């Protein structure tokens, strides 16, 4: 049946409507999607996308030997973001169960509310985190964060400092170098939904975070470990209230170790200050060294002349000056060796107030060392205008002046390096994320504080203090220590006088005396019953010096033998076995038994050469480099020299008969002959080195 005309017409009319509709819709879509599209797209992007900061990993901190002192580890933190009343209830119940809170307390404790972000616990270990991940109800979530980790625990914690939970440095180096360490946070695009949830699923970094710079400290953690151990033992042995000290490399001003030990400290993991720069004290007799420096420089000392020391009590205008022991006539050398207050005071009166003040200022007292550490104390020294003779006498023997440990150490370093006051350095260099070394410190001489010749005389006198003076207990057969003891009364700030039986016992010095490398100071506050610096701080100093020397055989090559013959042995050290001529397998066994490691050219054959040589001391897990070859004219293969010291590497090259060309200093970073290549004589190997 054909459609009637009316049906066709009417259906045609409706069809026209349908077609018209499609045209309108297409037109509208073109309007919306082509003409309005660009504007709408921007608006959509604005409402659905955002950016969040991607935290930048904090830089690593190394000690001067490349040991990692502070690094980052991942940690999880738990937070609540309940979206409904039900979720609040579930979340609260889960938290109560998880952390064993009494029922019904979690909600109030954490202030759980609908659509409110609340931290529940930060820093959750992995086991708990995975448990939470699988079992947590909606509304409770984990966030990945990085946490600062200190592999050496409390060692050097005061100087290293710590960070808050958000990774900002709070104290110590972490605070001092916070801008260097923290890097620049990146920016990531995230998607947001209409319910203000964030979707990190499509996270793409627009700006990658710039990792913070790593720092290489001048501190030597081996020394730091020894130092803290000895200091703690010393404080406990001598019943001191506080012990502190600093060791510096007197040639460069690099701080090698610094610490304090306070038995009553509440939170040793959260040290608030670095006492060695923040705490001031009256130095007492160790200050006589600086008085002596001034006298020597002014040429006021006649070594043949003697001074009467008043048999231990000298009445002055405003008071009496006492000696610990009664001394008669003494020459200048003996005055310092025996630490006669009266003798020094008499000499100081020759020098006069102005000169004495000037000398003290020259050595940096009363001025900040600009370490940048928080709350650094610059000490105090009064202007000479109002001084009486008694004040001059007091100052010359280290009273009426306040100093901090670092100042004393730098002062002794200046004497030890024959007269140059150096700026103390804590940071050796920084390394950016590309591995490039930046901001390497430069040895900075603040000023010359005394003539070289006067320094030489003073060093000899200070050696005498240890050999036949107040510090005979410090005398070591292993290493020639020079220094000065100090036993100073502690001011009682409340009663404005000195405590009768409370003393700061100190020893400051340097070693080895003939060519000083390390200068340092140890101060014990109020040790009992022995309060003499030469009997308390002195022995601590001696132990540290000896142990440090064992650790750095290269530095103290000549003293090494003496120690070994004395049979002194350091815990954790191993005597290098003689591997020469042994088969590789056997050599490997010996080395393993001793807890050392081998680095070898190849792993079969006979050991032809080794470094270090037999009978030297090494730390456990240190490496011995050996050259192995079959006895039948086997070619020598280039070992991996990277990471070795120049001394080690060049010793090998010398053995292999290869010429060396060294660029830079420090540890080998690159070698021109690749490891594994066969070496022919007359090759030249270029070593690129970098300091660490």
């Amino acid at each position: 049946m054909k459609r009637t005309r009316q049906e066709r017409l009417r259906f045609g009319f409706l069809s026209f409507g349908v077609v018209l509709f499609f045209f309108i819709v297409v037109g509208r879509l073109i309007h919306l999607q082509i003409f309005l599209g660009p504007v709408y797209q921007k608006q959509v992007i604005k409402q659905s996308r955002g950016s969040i900061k991607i935290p930048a990993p904090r830089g690593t901190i190394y000690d001067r030997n490349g040991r990692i002192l502070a690094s980052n580890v991942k940690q999880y933190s738990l937070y609540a973001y309940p979206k409904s009343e039900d979720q609040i209830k579930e979340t609260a119940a889960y938290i109560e169960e998880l952390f064993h809170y009494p029922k019904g307390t979690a909600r109030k404790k954490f202030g759980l509310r609908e659509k409110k972000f609340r931290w529940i616990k930060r820093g959750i270990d992995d086991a708990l985190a995975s448990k939470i991940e699988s079992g947590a109800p909606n509304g409770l979530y984990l966030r990945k964060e990085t946490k600062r980790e200190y592999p050496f625990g409390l060692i050097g914690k005061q100087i290293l400092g710590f960070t808050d939970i958000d990774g900002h440095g709070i104290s110590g180096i972490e605070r001092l170098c916070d801008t260097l360490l923290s890097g620049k946070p990146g920016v990531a695009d995230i998607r947001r939904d209409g319910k203000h949830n964030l979707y990190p699923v499509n996270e793409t970094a627009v700006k990658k975070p710039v990792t913070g710079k790593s720092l290489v400290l001048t501190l030597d953690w081996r020394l730091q470990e020894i130092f803290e151990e000895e200091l703690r033992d010393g404080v406990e042995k001598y019943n001191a209230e506080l012990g502190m000290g600093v060791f510096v490399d007197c040639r460069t001003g690099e701080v090698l170790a610094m610490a304090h030990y306070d038995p009553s400290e509440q939170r040793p993991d959260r040290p608030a200050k670095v006492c060695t720069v923040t705490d001031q004290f009256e130095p007492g007799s160790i200050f006589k060294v600086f008085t002596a420096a001034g006298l020597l420089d002014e040429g006021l000392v006649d070594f043949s002349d003697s001074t009467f020391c008043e048999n231990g009590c000298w009445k002055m205008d405003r008071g009496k000056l006492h000696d610990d022991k009664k001394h008669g006539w003494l020459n200048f050398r003996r005055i310092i060796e025996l630490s006669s207050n009266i003798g020094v005071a008499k000499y100081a009166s020759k020098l006069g107030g102005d000169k004495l003040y000037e000398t003290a200022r020259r050595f940096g007292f009363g001025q900040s060392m600009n370490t940048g550490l928080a709350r650094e104390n610059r000490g105090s020294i009064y202007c000479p205008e109002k001084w009486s003779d008694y004040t001059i006498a007091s100052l010359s023997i280290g009273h009426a002046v306040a100093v901090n440990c670092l100042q004393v150490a730098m002062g002794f370093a200046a004497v030890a390096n024959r007269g140059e006051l150096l700026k103390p350095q804590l940071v050796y260099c920084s390394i950016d994320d590309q591995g490039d070394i930046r901001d390497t410190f430069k040895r900075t001489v603040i000023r010359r504080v005394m003539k070289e010749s006067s320094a030489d005389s003073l060093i000899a006198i200070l050696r005498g203090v240890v050999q036949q003076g107040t510090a005979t207990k410090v005398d070591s057969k292993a290493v020639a220590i020079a220094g000065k003891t100090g036993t100073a009364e502690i001011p009682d700030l409340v009663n404005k006088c000195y405590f009768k039986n409370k003393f700061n016992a100190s020893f400051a010095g340097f070693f080895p005396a003939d060519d000083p490398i390390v200068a340092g100071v140890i101060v014990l506050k109020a040790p009992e019953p022995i309060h003499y610096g030469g009997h308390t701080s002195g022995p601590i100093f001696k132990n540290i010096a000896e142990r440090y020397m064992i650790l750095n055989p290269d530095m103290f090559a000549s003293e090494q033998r003496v120690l070994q013959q004395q049979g002194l042995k350091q815990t954790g050290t191993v005597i290098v076995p003689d591997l020469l001529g042994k088969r590789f397998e056997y050599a490997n066994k010996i080395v393993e038994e001793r807890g050392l490691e081998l680095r070898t050219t190849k792993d079969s054959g006979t050991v032809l050469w080794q470094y270090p040589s037999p009978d030297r001391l090494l730390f456990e897990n240190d490496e011995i480099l050996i050259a192995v070859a079959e006895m039948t004219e086997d070619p020598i293969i280039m070992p991996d020299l990277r990471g070795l010291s120049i001394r080690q590497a060049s010793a090998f090259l010398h053995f292999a008969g290869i010429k060396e060309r060294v660029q830079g200093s420090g540890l080998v970073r690159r070698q021109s002959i690749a490891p594994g290549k066969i070496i022919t004589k007359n090759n030249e190997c270029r070593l690129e080195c970098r300091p660490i």
Partner: protein
Amino acid sequence: MVRKTTRRSHSKKRVDERLLGAYIAIIALGLITVYSTSSMMAENKFGSHTFFFRNQFIWALLSLAVIWAITKIDLTRWAVYSAPAFIFILGLLAMVFLMDSRNGSHRWLMLGPFTIQPSELFKSVMIYYLAFSLSNHEHNASDLKQLLLKYFPLLGTGMLLILLEPDLGTTIVIFITAVAIFFLAGTRVKYLVTSAIPVGIVASILVFGLGYKRARVMDYIHSLGDPLQGSYQSAQAALTLGAGRIFGTGLGDGSQKLFFLPYPHTDFIFAAVGEEVGLLGLLFLLSVFFYILKRGRIIAMKQPDRFGFLLASGMTLSLFINIAVNIGVVTSLLPVTGLPLPFISYGGSSLLISSVAIGVLLNLSRRVAR
């Protein structure tokens, strides 16, 4: 006359394969777009990104089975039962008010685990009934007495019940569909225009006098100038479409479905899809719709009898009106009303009812001599 054509209609002619192909294509498109627009929400709400997709897939399979069944039955033989069925549906519409309301309206009838919308059934059965009734008594369509005493009360009651649910959108769709069928059946235009007058008056009083959905209408009026000035929903829909531009963000990559655009997988799926596939993708989707409607028209025009013509064109037009209202709302051409986009939107009953329309068209295509 109907009896006479029954024999012929039962010949072993094959269904219109082009329509079937287009139908399967659009169902597939629907499944893809449902997955793409709902997976995030499904993950968020149900912990499974395929939650909506799976349901829709099952409904699609069910729809295919229903279509197959419909092509096998003799529509002319069953047409006599359309009048009682229509009355029965009216009863169901009344029963809806005994049910608990959901989202503030009584649209659903819960039968154990199943929920049905009698208004959807009403639409299909109405078309069937009108096709039967208007073809059986050819002059009914132009007989004012019949119109006033029979069709007006019947249809009016149904539409009033649906309006009271309240479901204005469906009421309008049904009203337009009914008017279109009467128009095709030969009712004088004068009568149809006249019928629109009371509806217009009632609507104006409702909207402007009593404030019913007044805000929505005002939003619509604002949105005519600038789509962003309309309601939140239509503004977001316009933004979503605009953000897609010509090529779209890519399937699954739209950001507006993440709770910015309301109902991204149901009523506003056209916008959500538009963001992901862009203008080009939407033109493709529209052309598939257009092709289906075109096949519907061809089938209707070639029907051997008036019943088939009215039924086929009624089904085609009702599909069109659903599509037109939905897309009109999404593109801010019409005021916001909650209607799904046939075949594409998530939702079992919508898919099933739309598929029934296709099934009827396929059934009728078998009667066409080719």
